[in-house]
């Protein structure tokens, strides 16, 4: 559970036995396929989730960048993002562990909807904690979770966003730890979560490896993935960790600026890997956006899914060792890339994913001759934000959209 100095288990004592139990279950079922756990998981991922997802050559982007650009299409997974890989894995594991209830936190709602879907599919009751501000902003996702039979519990503390929802879910877990499993949504939290979530997501890289070999006969020169918590990132990278000639590029949200506002306690970005400092948050030692005292700062990104003040400890470690390169792309570039990729490829990427494409646009020569971009999710969820955010900016967008035009008026 350690990645260099990062990782560990910084949680209330009441949770430690559950975490030890989870570690044990993880080793038995996930690592050693006890009772055929991994076989069952793979079957659910295939039949319910739609795996394998395709690896597609992006014809127009390849031409634009004079580079073979391949897209790993996690946007085609059930629910519209890579999140289900992990949610299905953990809910199934909870079942194997004899747990009777699932809890999860959600910010914009992506992990919550994936967990609700997985819980319905596997017939487990689920309660999703969500900040009341986020609930207001994400009604459709709240409704999707409820349609899938989950209870969505508003978190009214603090600003009512993701951080508070995580803390509240930890509290529920501390209260109901004996029959309840907490499905953490990224490669964050106490050990074994970072390792386990990475393993559940590593199906992305496993498939990519096989598919790129079939298509090109070789490993790619680089893999580009956006990084918030980092689960799609590590999912795409893990398989290639020992292949030193494959550059692993993690693209963080540069937000509106990399400068922090210490007074307000706000970092107008989520570039934790690039600008954060080591600390302890939500159960793990990792890089954080924090002030001098160690208070956690509000992060910001145009993409809700990257908008988090921490990052997975393993990713922090791999950046320190140089195996993974941490770069960042700002809100404006991400928005422009959202429009460009939609127009050129007929794929509307999630705003998270648009950051990865933004890196490609700004650094077409840095990715080698063959690159894979992990399309972590689809952008249907982001349409309202995009209209809103595009309105405020003078973007270089070629699309002549009546909807955008109207919004500007």
């Amino acid at each position: 559970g350690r990645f260099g100095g990062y990782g560990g288990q910084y949680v209330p004592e009441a949770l430690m036995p559950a975490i030890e139990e989870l570690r044990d279950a993880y080793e038995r079922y996930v690592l050693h396929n006890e009772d055929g756990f991994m076989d069952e998981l793979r079957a659910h991922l295939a039949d319910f989730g739609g795996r394998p997802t395709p690896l597609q050559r992006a014809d127009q982007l390849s031409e634009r960048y004079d580079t073979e650009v391949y897209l790993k299409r996690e946007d085609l997974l059930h629910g519209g993002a890579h999140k289900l890989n992990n949610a299905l894995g953990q809910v199934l594991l909870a079942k194997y562990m004899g747990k009777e209830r699932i809890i999860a936190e959600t910010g914009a709602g992506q992990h919550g909807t994936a967990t609700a879907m997985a819980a319905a599919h596997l017939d487990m009751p689920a309660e999703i904690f969500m900040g009341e501000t986020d609930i207001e902003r994400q009604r459709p996702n709240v409704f999707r979770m409820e349609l899938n039979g989950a209870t969505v519990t508003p978190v009214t503390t603090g600003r009512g966003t993701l951080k508070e929802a995580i803390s509240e879910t930890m509290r529920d877990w501390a209260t109901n730890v004996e029959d309840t499993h907490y499905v953490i949504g990224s490669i964050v939290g106490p050990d074994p979560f970072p390792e386990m979530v990475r393993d559940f997501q590593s199906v992305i890289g496993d498939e990519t490896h096989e598919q790129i070999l079939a298509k090109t006969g070789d490993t790619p020169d680089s893999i580009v993935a956006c990084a918030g918590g980092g689960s799609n990132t590590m999912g795409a990278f893990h398989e290639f960790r020992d292949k030193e000639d494959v550059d692993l590029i993690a693209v963080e949200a540069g937000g509106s600026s990399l400068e922090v506002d210490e007074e307000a306690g706000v970092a107008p970005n989520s570039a934790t890997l690039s600008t954060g400092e080591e600390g302890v948050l939500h159960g793990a030692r990792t890089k954080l956006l924090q002030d001098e005292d160690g208070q956690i700062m509000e992060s910001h990104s145009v993409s809700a899914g990257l908008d988090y003040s921490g990052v997975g400890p393993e990713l922090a470690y791999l950046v320190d060792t140089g195996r993974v390169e941490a770069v960042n792309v700002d809100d404006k570039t991400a928005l422009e890339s959202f429009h460009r990729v939609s127009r050129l490829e007929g794929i509307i990427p999630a705003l998270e994913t648009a950051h990865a494409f933004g890196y490609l646009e700004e650094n077409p020569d840095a990715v080698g001759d063959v690159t894979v971009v992990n399309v972590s999710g689809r952008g249907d969820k982001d349409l309202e934000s995009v209209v809103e955010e595009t309105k405020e900016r003078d973007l270089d967008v070629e699309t002549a959209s009546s909807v955008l035009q109207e919004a500007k008026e």
Partner: protein
Amino acid sequence: MTANSEIGAVFESGEPAFIPYLVAGDPEYEASLEYVEALERGGADIVELGLPFSEPIAEGPTIQNAIVRSMEGGMTPDRFFAFVEELDVGIPLVCMTYYNLIFQYGSEAGPRPFVKRAAEAGIAGLVVPDLPAEEADPLRDACDEYGLDLVFIVAPTTRGDRLKTIMDQVSGYVYVQARLGTTGARDDVSDQTDESLARLREWDVPKAVGFGIKTGEHAERIVSAGADGIIVGSALVDIVADGADSGESTEAVADRLEAKARELKDGALRGTPSAAVED
């Protein structure tokens, strides 16, 4: 394993220890000083002082809100130490906070600068709710170096080897979590308390029970079950919150805190075996 003689002395007295908790700087700096002093007048034997952290994952709503009030009032680790130095009390003070604030403090990496400064300010011990024994070595070393007790929490779920690991590391007292969940006042006292105390009987470390104690009767019940002390947070923070909400005077709130402290202390005293015999 008692590193700090102040805390040791409290438990050596034989009387059950009453350990109230408040968030330093709640609802603001000056009033908070008075409130802590009122607790001493009400019979506190030790005070746990919360240094607020932005992500208090182990706290219930009452203390979360207190933390927000304190932080909005400008509380920081440095102000906290100033607060401790300014306090006019004669009982040991234990600082309760989350590990990131300890980890970040000062220019040197790790917990040592924080512990050094805490010792200078007169802090007798630390409780860190998000630091299990497994991760505690660096802090344990610093505490030993500067003569601070490091209090650990034992939960109802803590059994077997884990219990042993913790009890081997704890100093000052062990914080026995009365029930699962987060901090917060409740109307009942859990059977889990009895079971936890039974499990801890073999260790010769003072056992202070916290989480959910609200009344003198609770206190009595818990001490009679074998606790060496009681820890009360939310029931007292509720009084501070009420005062802040209603615009009550600092004196009036302080008086209410003192009265509540006395009720709890008296309850604890009634629960001692000797008291039962004497009745």
